[in-house]
């Protein structure tokens, strides 16, 4: 009898530990649990709070009245707000296009230089980020304002007769935004351009493609994943940007980001601000999904 029982392996005392030991799934879950908990408290819960808040009403003293209604959303359908939203979409889209136009040649050039120089250039692109964002925007203000560097230079060389009014216009906002988001476009573009084997372009030339044709048919499609990643990295934060329009657009330019900020901080209408945030979130999501699907996002980006 005794011999029989001893031949059976003892039952594990803690099934949790046994599970951790045996199941790769449980191991994975255990490993990412700190991140999951962090995300739960810093992302999921605040987001839920905003969702709930967007269905409430502002009280007379900026307090929140907890009564579920769709008032904030119907109010957002006002042409005034729709125009702000449309304008934000346009600005974000133009910012993305601007970063592609400036960033592509830059990334292309860096990817074609010898490896040792590359790290220097990449470093130079990141150097401005060591300075505070606000200070860099003020530097742009110094450059663009009526008696600024740009105008005095252009006047001196006689290119213009009267100073240009760039600052506090939509153009200034665009300049500031493109400047701010350029590295987010250059880095992913560089990564995918750098991965293109020189032999691919040699093959194109060998098969009769002139350089421009080789660029259109080989380089450009192969760098598309980088361009998509860069566009997402630029477009999404550009949609919510409010510092640049505030400082460089004067009072004239209001983007969705400014609207939300004003609702929370100035008007103290948190429920309406929350509803505007939700709209921004949903729009950005739809736009991004559409863009990535159209451009075949997925397997290419993972390679």
């Amino acid at each position, binding site marked *: 009898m005794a011999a029989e029982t001893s031949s059976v392996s003892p039952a594990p005392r803690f099934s949790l530990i046994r599970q951790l030991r045996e199941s790769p799934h449980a191991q994975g879950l255990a490993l990412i649990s700190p991140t999951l908990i962090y995300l739960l408290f810093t992302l999921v819960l605040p987001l839920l709070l905003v969702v709930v808040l967007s269905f409430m009403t502002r009280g007379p003293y900026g307090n929140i009245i907890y009564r579920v209604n769709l008032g904030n959303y119907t109010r957002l359908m006002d042409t005034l707000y729709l125009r702000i939203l449309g304008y934000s979409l346009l600005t974000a889209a133009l910012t993305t296009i601007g970063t592609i136009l400036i960033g592509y040649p830059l990334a292309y050039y860096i990817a074609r230089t010898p490896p040792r120089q590359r790290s220097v250039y990449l470093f130079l692109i990141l150097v401005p980020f060591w300075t505070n964002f606000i200070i860099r925007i003020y530097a742009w203000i110094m450059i663009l304002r009526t008696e600024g560097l740009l105008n005095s230079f252009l006047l001196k060389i006689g290119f213009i007769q009267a100073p240009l009014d760039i600052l506090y216009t939509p153009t200034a906002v665009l300049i500031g935004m493109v400047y701010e988001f350029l590295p987010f476009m250059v880095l992913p573009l560089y990564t995918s351009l750098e991965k293109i084997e020189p032999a691919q372009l*040699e093959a194109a*030339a060998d098969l009769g493609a002139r350089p421009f044709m080789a660029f259109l048919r080989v380089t450009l499609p192969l760098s598309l994943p980088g361009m998509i990643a860069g566009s997402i990295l630029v477009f999404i934060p550009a949609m919510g940007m409010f510092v640049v329009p505030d400082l460089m657009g004067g009072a004239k330019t209001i983007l969705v980001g400014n609207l939300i900020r004003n609702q929370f901080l100035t008007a103290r209408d948190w429920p309406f601000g929350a509803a505007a945030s939700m709209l921004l979130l949903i729009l950005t999501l739809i736009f991004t999904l559409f863009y990535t699907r159209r451009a075949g996002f997925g397997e290419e980006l993972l390679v």
Partner: protein
Amino acid sequence: MSQFAVELRDVVKRFPNPGGGEIIAVNHATLQINHGEFFSLLGPSGCGKTTSLRMVAGFEWPTSGEIFIDGKPMGRTPPFLRPVNTVFQSYALFQHMTIFQNVAFGLEMEGVSREETRRRVEAALEMVQLTGMGSRKPRQLSGGQQQRVALARALVKRPAVLLLDEPLGALDLKLRKEMQLELKALQEQVGITFIYVTHDQEEALTMSDRIAVMNKGNVLQIGAPVEIYERPNCRFVADFIGETNFLFGKVKAIDPDFVTVSLHGSERELVGIPLGKFYSGQEVVVSVRPEKMRIFDDTPLKIGVTPNQPNCFPIRIINTMYIGSDTRIVIDFGGGTQLKVWEQNHLSTLDALAYYAPGQELWVTMRPENVLILPQEE
């Protein structure tokens, strides 16, 4: 049609060395490649074979000298204007295009009509046995299939010359052997001049009509496989192509057909054929291939060889290795020299006595035609 499909006339290519100075990749190379020929550039890595090929393709331009394709000097003609196409070592297939689009790319650049493109691409895919694979992406194909796509993509343009840069290097041994035969058959079928770069001497011997052996930027010898193997013109070629034994000595006597060499470190003398001009007393290298020697037991008289005849010496077996088709034997030739001898196992037997054993005292003979006398390089 000019006399040669491709001609390299005194071509030099120098690259700046990142560490300063210059690297001479190709050193005064002169080659003439005939129409319809399967021509191989063979040599170890860094010998200049790939650079030579890239200069024909137009990816590099010669520092000096001139390359002619079908009699026309190429100068600095860019690749897209040259009547040659390349099969790259890495295949360099366009990953974002389907197989059909890959093969059609070159025709599209030429402005060939849609209908003709479709017809020619399908014919090319059929030729490399990839019919019906047109809609796949390169990534979905095996290495061997990708290799065929690269071939179809280049051949569909009907180039005057096809350049192949170690195209089989990435394939496993069995597939490589199959593809060697297929490539050769294909080349005979299409009749296009092939210039084939490889470091694999067996591959070059199997496939080529002629081979140029290169080392350190220099073209050492150009000839048919049999010439390169049986009559190498220098020690490097003898060593690089196949296996061989080297012995060292001094020229003792020169006959019209044969040269007698007295070997260093022993009293022995070898009679062989001179590959080059020699004078009495010159230091020479003697090359004898392992399969061109015979080992006999203690009765050389029985087979009509007397110990007094040239190139018949007593030896001792050091060790033997049975590898199925052959037995590879290392013999002590005397004077501290060991030689490799390969014997075909032409008898099927389990009798241990039929095989040599270490320590056995036997004889070795080699016919004078199999003993190659080469100049000692400076």
